[in-house]
């Protein structure tokens, strides 16, 4: 590192090695990024008095408590909310992947009338947020008798996730060598079999990227749960936390614990999938 910086005629900062400055800046920003989350999580495990007396201290034997978590689980149905979020996210992401791959395949492989129009229609959806159509979506759901059902959320999230999925997967379909499908056709393999047995397995890495991109906005969404499924039975975790914190805003233990319950699972998942996500972001899949 030092050798490297000596080669570079640097302007200013001549006394300190460049890499030290870089590490200092990045470390400082990492602290800024993590500090608020860490403070909330450590205080969730402390007694009320310790929360106020020593907000930055770690919980010790005298201040440790789980009373906040008990209150949260007692007063609200966090298990159900998490379950709802899980079901909605898994079903919606699964269908976005399957339907997205099928649509991407159809749009890139076959020439037909309207191909360009449909491609354009999907492309528009990447930029235009679906929630601008909320007024009509709500009346549609009322007419279909789907208000306060998880089905309503799944349908809307599929429509929300498809445009980007079709776009990214189309890019990948284009990179698949033509010879592969042509050889299969010469052996008179059916179009369905070509897609499910040849193409779909090849799309797996791209689908993982799409899955992560689709999953996050669905799991974190407040707008559609609030409008389409606000009932106690269908509440998602984000809406559940929002309602809970709004209701018990003065009970610090409960609020901190509720936030921690919402944060920690996401962070665990993120740690597991971060490599996948970052590879997706940096591989140029979304350009």
């Amino acid at each position, binding site marked *: 590192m030092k050798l490297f910086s000596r080669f*570079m*005629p*640097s*302007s200013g900062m001549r006394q300190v090695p460049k*890499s030290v400055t*870089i590490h200092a*800046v*990045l470390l400082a*920003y*990492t602290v*800024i*990024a*993590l500090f*608020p*989350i860490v*403070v*909330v999580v450590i205080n969730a495990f402390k007694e009320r008095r310790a929360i*106020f007396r020593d*907000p930055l201290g770690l919980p010790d034997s005298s201040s440790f408590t789980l009373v906040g978590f008990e209150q949260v689980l007692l007063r609200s149905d966090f298990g159900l909310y998490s379950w709802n979020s899980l079901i909605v996210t898994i079903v919606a992401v699964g269908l976005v992947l399957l*339907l*997205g791959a*099928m649509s991407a395949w*159809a749009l890139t492989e*076959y020439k*037909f009338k309207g191909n360009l129009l*449909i491609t354009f*229609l*999907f492309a528009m*959806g990447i930029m*235009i*947020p*679906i929630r*601008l*159509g*909320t*007024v*009509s*979506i709500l009346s*549609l759901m009322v007419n279909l008798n789907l208000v306060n059902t998880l089905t309503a959320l799944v349908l809307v999230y599929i429509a929300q996730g*498809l*445009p980007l999925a*079709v776009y990214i997967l189309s890019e990948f379909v284009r990179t698949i060598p033509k010879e592969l499908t042509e050889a299969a056709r010469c052996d008179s393999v059916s179009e*369905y079999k070509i897609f499910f047995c040849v193409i779909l397995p090849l799309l797996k890495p791209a689908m993982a990227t799409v899955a992560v991109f689709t999953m996050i906005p669905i799991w*974190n969404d*407040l707008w559609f749960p609030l409008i389409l499924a606000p009932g106690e039975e269908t509440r998602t975790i984000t809406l559940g*936390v*929002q309602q809970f914190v709004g209701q018990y805003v003065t009970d*610090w233990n409960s*609020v*901190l614990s509720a*936030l921690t319950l*919402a*944060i920690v699972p*996401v*962070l665990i998942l*993120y740690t597991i999938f971060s490599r996948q996500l*970052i590879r997706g*972001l*940096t591989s140029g899949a979304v*350009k």
Partner: protein
Amino acid sequence: MNPSNQHDEKKPFPWHLVFFLGPGLLIYVVFSVYPLLDTLVLSLYNEQQGQSHFVGLQNFITLITDDTWSQAFWNALGNNFTFFAIHMLVQNPIGLILAVLLSTPKLRLSGTYRTLIFMPTMLSVVIIGFVWQLLLSPIWGISEDFLYTIGLGQYFDAWLGKESSALITLAFISVWQFVGIPMMLIYATLLNIPDDIVDASVVDGANSLQTFWHIKLPLILPTIAMVSILTFVANFNAFELIYAVKGALAGPDFSTDLMGTFFYRTFFGFQLQQGSASMGAAVATLMFLIILVGVMLFLFFIQRRIQRFQF
């Protein structure tokens, strides 16, 4: 499915096309394209006692000129531009700087920094809103104590509660959460710059600042343009942060009202005012137009600037 039909045509009906494209397209059209178009149409109608009749542009005229409506509308729009400006001036430059630092060749721990700095972006805006509400709360006093430790204690204020500072504070919270997105996208582009271009400029005697300014920046301009468009669309669509921290009324005294919260209140009503589907649709239509114009302008201007740099 129906063989007698197929005999009349030259080619068999492309059932595989219907199979592959049908389900996805159907859901997308029914739950995204149709509602959007229907909203645009609905904004031209007025609903009274369950009867809806065509009123042309009357809803828009009301929004823009009527005393009670226009004040709220222009306020939300103005706030939204402030919100966007802060993102452009703070979030994207910080993201750019972090990306440049991260892309330093042979930087150790760069993957760890990247993962950790991106972490807040993964969490729900609602959760982040509550987290910062607690941190900035004068009751808890963490921020106040912190400012006193670094000698700036007298500047502490209940920022989220004051009309003059609430919107800016919320914008900074949002910047803090989403700085990871410009960072990642710009970082990815920087990694893709071929080494020999950079090496050539170093050999020619350019220092690192010159290399950045003359070699790297022009090459990442398209990414910066894309980040700007993404920021624009996200900002003019923002709702959750304001709703979580300030509620649908976007207090104090509507000083944090954005188009998203204004849309929500218009559609669902608040306090004494009744919700209206057609007025809600009108607000959504205006948001649609703003986003459309914004995207077009960006594409137009940025595209031209980029072309000048490509030789």
